[in-house]
């Protein structure tokens, strides 16, 4: 039914379009522009002086003789970020799927309570939560203390300010983003399909791998994307739990706009990240589409 004419429909979405265009599209264009300018001597940029140096310096550096030399420092930070994000996604999946499954199996009333509990961490500022993890993870902290008192661990735990601490912190932060979409897909799952699988001779494991997991796949994919992408952009957690020693992309970008006063390079890094994320998403969605087609 045509309730709204095309013209009227435009005005319905206009606020959203204008908002996104103004606050996301415009800054993006500006960043793209900045990334191909020369840096100013005291920060800022030299408007009008174009240069691709920023992109070049992502992989190369100039030695004293002005020769280009390969420099993998930045690439390593990118790789580490992707690695940590992947690790975090896997950890979140391992913890999140059983949680979501458990919640979905509860009676309706209790489910809502559990979902409520899952969202509680959002009520606290992310800085505060990361400081709390510092207190938990540091040598002589609560976990160290507990392990020592049961005799598993003597001496320091030595985990704070390592990539593991960062991954633990990230997993904690983004776990709800894994739990909620998986829960949503499991909750929709018709319980009678599981009974049908049992009826046809599938034991619990077979019912899980042949029926439940494939049907929950859209939720798992959504959860993985919702954890992986924000992880790549994590700033606070690597800063605090990594102690600044294990930079992730955001910290690197942040430092270019801050201490390093290299706006073009910061912008260029942002665009490299954006390109990689889009590429990863593309590959993933193609692969997933193929998986879905194979299954059908």
């Amino acid at each position, binding site marked *: 039914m045509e309730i709204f004419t095309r013209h009227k429909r435009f005005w319905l979405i206009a606020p959203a379009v204008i908002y996104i265009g103004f606050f996301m599209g415009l800054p993006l264009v500006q960043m793209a522009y900045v990334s191909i300018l020369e840096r100013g001597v005291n920060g800022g940029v030299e408007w009008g002086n174009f240069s691709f140096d920023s992109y070049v310096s992502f992989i190369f550096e100039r030695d004293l003789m002005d020769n280009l030399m390969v420099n993998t420092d930045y690439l390593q930070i990118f790789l580490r970020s992707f690695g940590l994000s992947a690790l975090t996604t896997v950890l979140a999946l391992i913890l999140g799927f059983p949680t979501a499954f458990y919640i979905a199996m509860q009676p309706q009333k209790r489910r809502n309570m559990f979902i409520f509990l899952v969202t509680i961490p959002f009520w606290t500022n992310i800085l505060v939560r990361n400081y709390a993890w510092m207190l938990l993870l540091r040598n002589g902290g609560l976990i160290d203390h507990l392990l020592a008192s049961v005799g598993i661990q003597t001496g320091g735990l030595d985990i704070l300010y390592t990539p593991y601490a960062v991954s633990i912190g990230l997993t904690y932060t983004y776990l709800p983003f894994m739990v909620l979409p998986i829960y949503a897909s499991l909750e929709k799952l*018709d319980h009678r*399909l599981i009974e*049908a699988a049992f*009826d*046809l*001779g599938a034991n619990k494991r077979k019912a899980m791998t042949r029926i439940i997991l494939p049907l929950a796949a859209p939720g798992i994919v959504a959860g993985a994307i919702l954890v992986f992408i924000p992880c790549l952009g994590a700033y606070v957690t690597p800063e605090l739990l990594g102690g600044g020693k294990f930079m992730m992309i955001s910290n690197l970008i942040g430092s270019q706009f801050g201490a390093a006063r290299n706006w073009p390079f910061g912008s260029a890094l942002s665009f490299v990240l954006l390109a990689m994320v889009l590429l990863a998403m593309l590959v993933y969605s193609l692969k997933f589409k193929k998986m879905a087609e194979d*299954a*059908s």
Partner: protein
Amino acid sequence: MSEVVISARSVSKRFGSGTHAVHALDDVSVDIFQNEFFTMLGPSGCGKTTLLRLIGGFEQTTAGEIALEGRVLNDLPPFKRPINTVFQSYALFPHLTVRQNITFGLEMQNISRHDASKRADEMLELVRLSQFGDRQPSQLSGGQQQRIALARALAPAPKVLLLDEPLSALDLKLRKEMQIELKRLQTETGITFVFVTHDQEEALAMSDRIAVMKSGKILQIGTPRDIYETPTHRFVADFIGDSNFLQGDIKQNGAHAVLALPGGQNVSLANVETGIHLSQSATIGIRPERLILHPAGTHNTALRGKIADVVYFGTDTTYHITIDDQTALLARVQNRDGSTMAFAKGNNVDITLPAGAIRVLVD
């Protein structure tokens, strides 16, 4: 009699506890035989699905036991029972093709891919959907989905097939077709079918035997003919087909017992064999087509009534009759060429009740 396949002995099922407990089944015992089309018939909430789920292993009995070929099943999980189910909602796996749905049960039995595929072809042929193997379940009509659900459940060659109102989602025409189809499949495969419905016509048309259920109990088990012609309970007579009920006290009148109606007339119970206890209030049932109508004053032992309404149905005519202005009776007379007298509204009639058609019923 052939061999007993499923045997339920004093099975009770209670959901919940304390004051909120629901007694879904109360001391139910039934034997189901090899190669039988057995139907459980009853109104909504009488416990049909519950009994089926107990047989399938999806619920645990509160008391009593269920045995398959003499072996007690109580603790056996559903996937270890050679019993398959056709679910009311079909429950086809939406992410698998029709063929993969059918081979699922075979793969669970570790049957080789090749054999499973061959069996799937046989099953598709059996339900006459050979060209639909590569479709997704969502691309099938309701009736086709229903037949795939059947094929899937039949593929592993179970000892017993459970069907929970499998036809209730279909329209009338398709339903009639599927009734014939189901009966054909049962005869061809020789598998015992346990079928649940609340549609009495369906039950009569398809079943070898019917168990009529009410509030968690089985009231009567018998062939469709038994159930229709010799119901034991008022509920059974009422639920299946139309029935007249007359209530009164049983008294001795000369050599015979009679049912004394509240209006003063008597129904002779001479030659009525069962269920007669003198000086008790009782209900008798008689089918409308078994009443015989005569012109008033021609039969002096008959009940005297008055035609309150006449409804013409083509093949037959239904007369609504009142007796002593308080008891309503329904009489159905076949319309044959000139052989029956037609009565008009307001006529007095004599009504005779053949002894063989009278049933003394348990309330």
